[in-house]
């Protein structure tokens, strides 16, 4: 479904991604783990077209994305719940969700989608007329994910959904991610919380200073010596 081949991305002179290649298949949850500054978010930003790769290709169902501007990539079915959430703070929850469906030419089924999002995130329904900026961190995360789902994407990119949330909320969010996946959504999940990510993902990639150093089934990665030491903190 989504395929990155030897992608190199730079910030000015800084070589942030040094030939990242990865694939996400239909219906999978693939996780990208790594420490701070490994290039996880850069990978997502590159897929989204916010940072242009200097070389390499990004294919979504065989169509090259790497030369398209962000709004066209979004229009082709790549939706992201971005790092820092980037919800519209002065719009209500409902308006935020409506913006999520903006790229869809066909508005039929909007109400069904809304109902689906509310069944996934009942908290959002309670806050429907509240401004995005006045929500708590966990609610903002839910809103960002719900907004991404409103686009009926082919693939959902999640950037650090656990960031800044309490353990209870992290558990809830990951449960919801699993539920979304069960409904057939393909997900690329970027996480610092490697243990949680690996326990719900099908496969995983380990990113270190801009390079993929390891890739395997999630269950195997969890048992991997190096991963256990560096990312799970288990001796």
């Amino acid at each position, binding site marked *: 479904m989504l395929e990155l081949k030897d992608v190199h991305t730079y910030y000015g002179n800084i070589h942030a991604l040094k030939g990242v290649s990865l694939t996400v298949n239909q219906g999978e949850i693939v996780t990208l783990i790594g420490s701070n500054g490994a290039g996880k978010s850069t990978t997502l930003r590159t897929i*989204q077209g*916010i940072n242009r790769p200097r070389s390499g290709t990004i294919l979504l169902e065989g169509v090259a994305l790497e030369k398209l*501007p*962000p*709004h*066209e990539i*979004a*229009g082709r079915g790549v*939706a*992201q719940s*971005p790092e820092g959430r*980037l*919800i*519209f*703070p*002065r*719009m209500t929850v409902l*308006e935020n969700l*409506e*913006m*999520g469906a*903006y*790229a869809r030419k066909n508005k039929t089924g909007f109400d069904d989608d809304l109902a689906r999002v509310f069944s996934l995130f009942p908290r959002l329904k309670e806050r429907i007329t509240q*401004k995005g*900026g*006045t*929500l*708590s*961190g*966990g*609610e*903002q995360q839910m809103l960002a994910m719900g*907004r991404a789902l409103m*686009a009926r994407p082919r693939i959902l990119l999640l950037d650090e959904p*656990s*960031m*800044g*949330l*309490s*353990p209870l*909320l*992290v558990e809830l969010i990951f449960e919801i991610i699993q539920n979304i996946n069960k409904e057939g959504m393909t997900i690329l999940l970027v996480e*610092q*919380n490697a*243990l*949680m990510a690996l*326990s719900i993902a099908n496969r995983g990639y380990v990113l270190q200073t801009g390079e993929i150093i390891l890739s395997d089934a999630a269950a195997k990665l969890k048992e991997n010596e190096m991963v256990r030491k560096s990312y*799970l*903190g*288990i001796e």
Partner: protein
Amino acid sequence: MDKNIKSGITFGLIGGFLTFLFGGWSVAVLGGMLGLGLGLSLGSRFERRNPLQIARASFMPALVAAVILVGLSLVQNIFILPALGKARLFDNQVIIANTIGFLVVLLLTIITCAIHGLSERQEGIAKLVLLAIVIITFPFIDKATGLRWSAQVIFALIFVILGLGLNIVVGYAGLLDLGYAAFFAIGAYTTGILSSPQHGIYMNFWLVIWIAAGIAALWGLILGAPTLPLRGDYLAIVTLGFGEMIPVIFRNLTEVTIKEPFTCWILPGITNLFGAKSTLACITFFERQDLTAGEKGISPIGRPSLPFIGEFQSDNPIPWYFLIIVIILLSIFIIRRLRESRLGRAWMAIREDELAASQMGIDPVRTKLAAFAMGATFSGFAGAFYAAYIRGIFPSVFDFSASIIILVIVILGGLGNINGVIVGGLVIMTADRLFLPALKDFLASLLTNTILPSLAGNPVLQAAVKDNANPILYRFLLFGLTLVIMMAVRPEGLIPSAQRRMELHAAEEMAGPVIPEETAKPNAMTVAGKTKAAAKKR
């Protein structure tokens, strides 16, 4: 003291002191405005219940306001007029005007108040009807009472359209445009060039106004295309530059030559290389044509005409007034529709967060260009009307200060709110065009007849007072002061958009900036806790 009575006193004092400046019949007209204003502000305070009860409750404040207004108006007649060196007036006219003023305050206050007792829908309709009556009758009342405010009100309404247009750019799309008067100039000059005997072209005004709007929109696109990829401060600086350039260009379009390049330069150039001469005649469209007449400006400019009314005349403001009212209503209709449209929502998203908007599939550059072009279109309408109304256009009218005044109208009125911008435009421009000149005349007469003679013993002070007592000199100082006070006291504007109001309320209620509760906590604890829990499971 009762809060409502206090409002009555405030409104009465404001209206009363204004009669000092305008005198004559102004007491009746000011009374009408006072009644409407007081009624609206009181009405919203009462709970929704029987209109009769509300009417009864509003009677005392209305009476207080009416007494103060008429009292001050009589003070004007008895004490102020002699001080201004004018004869004391006590004829039938004065008595009639004051009686009407008194009754009008009472009636309008009570009626506008009582409306609030109707159901919400009925109240909306009743307010619209009241507004329509005020708008329609104003120029006739103005004419009958001899106040001659219409001409200045029309001027204010031109700025209302400009404010509405700029509101799209600044209020909806969040792009700070410091050179908006450039599009006003383009609309006005297009009209000037296409319907002035200076160029021998007499296009019908009804056609020209559309052309002017179209050309302004086109220039919106041309100027916007290279600048809109910029953000925030950079965009503001570049629009400032364009705003400065356009008047300079119009000032200098006095010898315009347009030749067809191939026959005039390229072909002769090539043949010249071979030592021959081009045999093709050079095609010249314009040879040293004076397009804008520089500082002298374009004048006269053609006026609109209609069947039955004939050509609009300078000495009769009524047709002009209704024309601009129609343009404003049309603008409001279009802008409302735009706001609710897909494009309107894209503007809001861009204003909120450009990156997030682009991730929703919104093309930021195209959306911003559309805002620029739409904003420019309305200034094109305003420019065409202005040129025809004033009958002459001069480059100095469209300089930086015009851009700033329009921006102040938008911000002071209430960023993003159509009603706010209308009120802002009316308040600022009538203050500028009506209040300040009246205050100047008032002070001048007061000085020459009362104050200066009393200062005769101190010639230095006398000269200083004489030279500095012209409020028009302090026009921009007063503007600036108003802006500073407004931003400190009421930053959301006179009539803020629902969104901004809610925001400010939310901030007050929560007593501090809105920070999502969890983001501040460090993550390490969570991760460690989780890991231990997971380890235990195994």
